[in-house]
């Protein structure tokens, strides 16, 4: 059962991701990415990370991708109909080759023989007892409190930056 679900989600994610890269139209790329993200949310649930799954959908599908769609619509980007003027074939080829090399290396690196370090205290039983949300909350607001607070600075900076950028024309 679990394998079946995993395979379904993985397949959807992989195909959708590939589709995102291969689609000509940016809006189809975005839709493919949304699909891939959904599949990934399913994988999170399989991994018993319900909170992450919900937040993942909420943030990525609910906010980030809407923003992408918004920009695509705002700029009215229709599919690239005409062939590119100066298509850099060598460069694209190099990109594919390098990405392939990266994939091979990563796959070699993460084979079944991967060794895990010492285990933490949060096995499934504990999680079920404490509750996934509560456990994550405790770690987030305990051990990682200061980094968490710092992220607010990042968000603030991004907010200010986005406003400044969107308001004024580039010189």
């Amino acid at each position, binding site marked *: 059962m679990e394998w079946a679900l995993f395979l379904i989600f993985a397949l959807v994610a992989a195909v959708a991701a590939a589709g995102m890269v291969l689609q000509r139209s940016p809006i189809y790329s975005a839709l493919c990415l949304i699909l891939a993200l959904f599949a990934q949310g399913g994988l999170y649930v399989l991994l018993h990370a319900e909170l992450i799954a*919900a937040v993942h*959908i909420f943030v990525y599908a609910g906010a980030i991708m809407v923003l992408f*769609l*918004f920009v695509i*619509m705002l700029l009215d980007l229709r599919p690239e109909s005409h062939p590119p003027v100066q298509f850099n074939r060598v460069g694209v080829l190099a990109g594919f080759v390098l990405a392939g090399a990266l994939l091979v290396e990563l796959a070699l690196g993460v084979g079944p023989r991967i060794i895990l370090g010492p285990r933490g205290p949060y096995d499934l039983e504990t999680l079920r007892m404490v509750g996934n949300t509560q456990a994550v909350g405790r770690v987030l607001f305990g051990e990682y409190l200061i980094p968490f607070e710092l992220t607010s600075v990042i968000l603030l900076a991004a907010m200010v930056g986005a406003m400044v950028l969107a308001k004024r024309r580039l010189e």
Partner: protein
Amino acid sequence: MMDFLVATVLKIALVMGLVLLAVAYLTWLERKVIGDIQVRYGPSRVGRFGLLQPIADGIKLMFKEDIVPANADRLIFCLAPAISIIPALIVFAVIPFGPSFVITDVNVGLLYVFAVTSLGVYGIVLAGWASNSKYALLGGLRSSAQMVSYELSLGLSVVGVVMMAGSLSLVDIVEAQKGSWYGILPRWNVIPQFLGFVIFLVSSNAELNRAPFDLPEAETELVAGFHTEYSSMKFALFFMAEYANMIGASAMATTLFLGGWQGPLLPPVFWFVLKVFCFLFLFMWLRATVPRFRYDQLMGFGWKVLLPLALVNVMFTAAALLMFA
């Protein structure tokens, strides 16, 4: 395993059936209510009190010609109505209608609801885009900006409730509202969280794209906004999505702020439905009386009034909880 599956499927079927039926008759109810408010009759020809009107409408819509504009993006054009209605329906998976009458009680139920409802915007945005029409595009753009903006205050307005219940599970949140203060006042969140309640109502109204926040389909400016080019059953799906969302929002308001199914004597489901109908009536009433916002007013109101208020509410709730709990 099989029992569980069968029970779940039965529950799903029951809930979906009820919701769809409710959606159909909600259109009738709305026309009636608004008719009354405007001193008209509303539908009255088909069946007694016009009770068969929704069915007649449904049949009519089904047999209309299905038009897809020539320059439209066919796939997305067809997909958009479906994307619109699916989130509106699957929200009901976690809403507790009664003590044990819930399809599934998820640990992160509230987050699930928000995650799912935030997807509703795709239907509208994609419809606007795929129609390849100026009005539709503008409607879609407005809609995405509006929904992203009001989602923030919507989310923040319920943080107080979550803090008081200490859980994201909707069942837990309802349970936390059991009992009463001083024997008379029900222990409903609407009393300590009144500010949050108001913000929730206003923001959810905006999320529903209903008057006075119906900018995406503002007839006087954009013909019909995102669904200008839609007809037949596709059009009907958008309509159903809107009403299903309305029920969903009312159910959420009931669950979060009015103690869900809790109530004396009568069966819980009755109380739940009663409260939901109160909210539905409120939404209709709003539509009938309040004029539409201007676009800049809408944005200013969301960012400069609701969002700060919601933050204040969160802060006060936290402070109060720290002091008294």
